């Protein structure tokens, strides 16, 4: 009786931890969102970028994009909220509006084409995965081994 009871509690504790871990994996997923203020061609139509877009995330300005420029922001979770301040033509009026984007959980880097997005196109039109170009130098990193530590390893503490 007592044993089964404790077993239940133990399983419960593990489950709760696992559940928390799972929640964390979902809500803590980090994404990098790239904003493209670039021409988009979709269904044989061309969408011109506005003259200037200023992007605010969480109240802070993260990018100020002229046409053909790309900006970047990081976010945690899948609900991405951004505020865009758009100036269609040089010297024109600015409009300010808030947009909500649902990000796909599986992607690390997401490119959002602003002209396409603003034009209300379907998702596949303006959203694409960001594939980083590996520009790594191919030199092998020095990996320390064994029981021979150098002074640097003592590090700052």
């Amino acid at each position, binding site marked *: 009786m007592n044993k089964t*009871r*404790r077993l239940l*509690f*133990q399983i*419960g*504790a593990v489950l709760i931890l696992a559940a928390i871990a799972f929640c964390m994996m979902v809500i803590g997923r980090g994404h990098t969102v790239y904003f493209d203020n670039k021409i988009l061609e979709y269904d044989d139509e061309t969408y011109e970028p506005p003259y200037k877009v200023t992007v605010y995330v969480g109240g802070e300005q993260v990018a100020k994009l002229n046409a053909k420029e790309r900006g970047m922001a990081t976010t945690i979770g899948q609900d991405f909220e951004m505020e865009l301040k758009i100036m269609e033509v040089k010297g024109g009026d600015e409009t300010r509006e808030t947009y909500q984007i649902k990000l796909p959980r599986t992607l690390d880097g997401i490119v959002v084409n602003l002209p396409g997005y603003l034009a209300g196109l379907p998702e596949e039109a303006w959203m694409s995965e960001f594939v980083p170009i590996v520009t790594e130098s191919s030199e092998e990193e020095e990996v320390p081994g064994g029981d021979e530590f150098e002074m640097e390893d003592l590090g700052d503490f």
Partner: protein
Amino acid sequence: MQTNSPPLLEMRNIKKDFFGNQVLTDINLTLHEGEVLGLCGENGAGKSTLMKILFGMDVIRETGGYEGEILLDGKPVSFSTPFEALEAGIGMVHQEFSLIPGFTAAENIVLNREPKKRNIFSEVFGERLDTLDYNEITGRAEAAIDKMGFHIEKNMRISDMPVGHKQFTEIARELSKENLKLLILDEPTAVLTEKEAEALLRSIRSMSEKGIAVIFITHRLHEILSVCDKVVVMRDGFVVSDVPAAETTVNEISKWMVGRNVSSADSRDIRDTSGSRTILSIRRLWVDMPGETVRDVSLDVREGEILGIGGLAGQGKLGIPNGIMGLYEAGGTVELDGKPIPLNAPRKCLDASLAFVSEDRRGVGLLLDETLEWNIAFPAMQVQNKFLRSYLGGLVKWRDEKGIREVTERYIDELAIKCTGSKQKARELSGGNQQKICLAKAFALEPKFLFVSEPTRGIDIGAKALVLNALKKFNRESGVTVVMISSELEELRQICDRIAIVSGGKIAGIRPASDPSEEFGMLMVSMVK
């Protein structure tokens, strides 16, 4: 009234041997509720083995169990661990304290039986995360202390307590066990002051009034008479008498303890050495050897004799040679041939041609992981530069392997040591043969004077005779004075010329070995501390 119900404890025909060595034969004991039984006997009489059987100690099972039957409340029981015995209501207070030094008395009393409260963590991680209920702990400790009838400070840490109070804490711990029916006290008064001992006796009486039976093991015979309902005396694994305490006397008990039909007296070869000069004189010796404290010993040993030193365990007989040889801290004066020997310096003793065969074979006597050659030749090599060859004008002292082998082989032959060869490791020999190696080691030193401590402890009868004969021969043929320390009086009476009895850390008396054993028995218990 008692006759109607079955006795609380009944032991029937208990037998026990250690590897063919019979240590208990047909022991019968009965004990009723609230009865106090005094158990006495010499060391090695079988008291502790009997208690170990009753208490289900591991040693018993590991050495092949026991024969016979134990009945508790009329039902047969057999404990395979001490915990089962505790469960059944048997408590035991051992000679060595079993207390946590940094805990208070109360914490020790309830050790591992602490009252607990549940909490959220203990639901998940199990009972060990229950919080302790300190109020309840104090309560239970108080109750146990009340039951004992001797006040100890429940919040005092053990490490701050006087020795006697530690003993009482142990007793209180046993009493705090709800179902305690039988309490075994193994020499509880050994560490108590006079007053505390009296208090203990009072509390034994009050326990007995509350219906708890007590088995009281002690060497202080008057205590037995004053508190026990009956007395059981053991000797050589037998119960020699089982009488109501009211019907006997201290004299009678001590006779039973050592008494034996002395038939071999004639065959003994006892030498009267009263004319010989004194070779070793000990004055006011004290030795701090744990468990074998020597308080004030003065003793003269005559040249060429075999002097036995006997006494009960813990009275200090072992401390004498260990102190003189510098193995334990000692004070006083010792003179060999009129020349003083400095204490606390083993080398000085060896240089003065003293030799010692220790009772602790494995700890002190042998290099277990080395060859027999090394064991036998080492002290002689170090002390007397034997078995060495000098090169470069004595700058290099090289081990003489050939000489070492020769001497080892000689002793292997002489002492009939059973081994595969002189290169065998000492660890691989049996106890008796190890003892012979220890003797050979001492003989190789060719000493003027030899201390032999418990030479027959833990070896079988055949080997015993060989060892004793070798000693006797060594003494008679080489004229070396031998002092032999032994717990077995009969053994001493067999080979010694005179026997000194140590009691309470002092010499209680010296008698010729031909005196009847009762005499020695009286001396043994005379000054017991």
